């Protein structure tokens, strides 16, 4: 390629060609622009990403090997080696997994080369993402298990929960202090949730517990009372991570992935928050720290207003409450992604409504298709400097009791090591 300047005065420009980004591109190349954003906007911030996924399906065989039941281990490995692959034992419907928009978005289900790098390839990929995005900590969560609550076989959820939690705590998290985990709770089987909380409650790398919201369990049921008491005693948060399920009869009416995805990620957390509040769970478990993950923000004022409106008319149906649902909701925590931002006036009002400055935690959801960079917060014109710092990391440090000193390398160092060609 010709490389010369026509201005006749200065030296010839330095020109390099940038390659197309695809599924096998290095994470640091894909996120090169985000690294530049880090330098320009938030290099001195402390940043925590509460929800990221990497791509554990590549290592699903390692999880299956840790299943503690001989029969399910055999079935899982048999499927893994034949038609099931990374979906072995799971209730995902690969033909309905249209996240990539026909291959337009290549980073979900990434397969980047990590050969020659010491350590587990999952950790290598995660570290590249953390460095490129400018994260001090990242909480990794299993994508493949997000709809496991809808699995018709509770015992499969149990054996996969035990195996995944072992893989997370024994293989992944010990390799990088910047990676943290939320323990997967097989919520269809409460007594196993209790067993797992007891087993992992003192693991420093497990900073909280997660229920995948895509399920039909009433969260106010007394079968969970002991579990909530145990979690409350740990002082670690309980997160409900939302998801989708096209098989839900209501969503089966929707003929596009975007329609189903837009509604379902808010649907499940709306149901669980409603049950949680109307059944006075904040009064019955006043110290439990509730975090609602991956529903965006627009649903929060919607639901709060709906519940306030009806509770005032029908107090006899929510007699355990001592204040309005919106007031309880302002005492909970929420994560940012996928943050609706096509109308900044509405977003500003939403954040003001639930005191985002203290209650909101940044989450990337990287590498899923609708991920958010930290710049989605640092770019907001109406937030104060302190509010940005709180949302991007300090609120998480407080909620999860994290050491809020810088852990990541300088963004410029990341660029120097991988200048971004792909």
């Amino acid at each position, binding site marked *: 390629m*010709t490389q010369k*300047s026509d201005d006749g005065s200065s030296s010839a420009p*330095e*020109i390099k060609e940038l390659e197309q*980004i695809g599924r096998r591109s290095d994470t640091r190349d894909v996120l090169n622009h985000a690294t530049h954003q880090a330098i320009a906007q938030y290099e001195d911030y402390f940043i925590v990403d509460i929800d990221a996924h990497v791509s554990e399906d590549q290592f699903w065989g390692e999880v299956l090997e840790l299943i503690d039941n001989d029969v399910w281990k055999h079935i899982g490995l048999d499927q893994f080696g034949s038609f099931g692959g990374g979906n072995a034992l799971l209730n995902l419907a690969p033909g309905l997994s249209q996240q990539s928009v026909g291959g337009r978005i*290549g980073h979900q289900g990434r397969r980047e080369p990590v050969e020659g790098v010491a350590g587990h390839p999952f950790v290598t990929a995660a570290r590249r993402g953390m460095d490129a995005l400018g994260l001090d900590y990242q909480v990794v969560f299993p994508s493949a298990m997000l709809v496991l609550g809808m699995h018709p076989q509770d015992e499969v959820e149990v054996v996969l929960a035990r195996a995944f939690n072992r893989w997370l705590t024994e293989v992944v998290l010990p390799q990088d202090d910047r990676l943290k985990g939320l323990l997967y709770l097989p919520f269809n089987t409460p007594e196993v949730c209790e067993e797992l909380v007891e087993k992992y409650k003192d693991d420093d790398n497990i900073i909280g517990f997660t229920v995948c919201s895509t399920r039909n369990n009433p969260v106010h049921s007394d079968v969970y009372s002991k579990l909530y008491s145990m979690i409350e005693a740990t002082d670690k948060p309980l997160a409900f991570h939302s998801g989708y399920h096209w098989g839900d009869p209501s969503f089966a009416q929707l003929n596009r992935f975007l329609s189903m995805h837009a509604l379902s990620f808010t649907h499940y957390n709306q149901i669980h928050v409603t049950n949680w509040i109307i059944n006075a769970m904040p009064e019955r478990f006043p110290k439990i720290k509730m975090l609602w993950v991956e529903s965006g923000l627009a649903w929060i004022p919607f639901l709060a207003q709906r519940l306030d409106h009806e509770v005032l008319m029908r107090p006899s149906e929510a007699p355990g409450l001592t204040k309005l649902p919106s007031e309880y909701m302002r005492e909970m925590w929420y994560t940012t992604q996928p943050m609706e931002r096509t109308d900044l006036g509405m977003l500003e009002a939403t954040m003001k409504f639930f005191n985002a400055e203290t209650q909101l935690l940044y989450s990337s959801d990287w590498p899923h298709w609708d991920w958010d960079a930290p710049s989605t917060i640092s770019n907001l014109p109406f937030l104060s400097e302190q509010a940005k710092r709180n949302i991007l990391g300090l609120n998480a440090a407080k909620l999860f009791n994290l050491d809020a000193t810088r852990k990541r390398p300088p963004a410029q160092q990341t660029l120097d090591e991988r200048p971004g060609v792909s």
Partner: protein
Amino acid sequence: MAAQNIKPLRDVVIGKYDQLRTRERVVLDIDGKEVGVYFEGDEVRAWLNVCPHGGGPVCQGKIMPRTVHNFLPGGKSGGLGHHESERNIVCPWHGYEFGILSGEHPIKSDVKLIAVPVRISDGDVILSV
């Protein structure tokens, strides 16, 4: 902003038109300024490699046919199809799409790419960056 901070544009020859047009698209980093150059029929366009949505490397994604919803008489749906000629630039970060020639989002036209001046002169493709 002070006027002295604005760098004047300078012309940069990036190659021969006859050679580059066979490439369909090239994305270049020219002294830190990233530009995607597209060759569509006899037309040439250059767009800044920065997505108006989130700042992603918009020109480094796929080029896809524009998807259309075919409408049939009587208000019936004819289903989805690919436009026979129009193609879109797709941002690899989140899938935002923009017409190669217009630089506009197919649904909201005021969401658009930033044009970089480009011309053909004496067989050379010249960008003003």
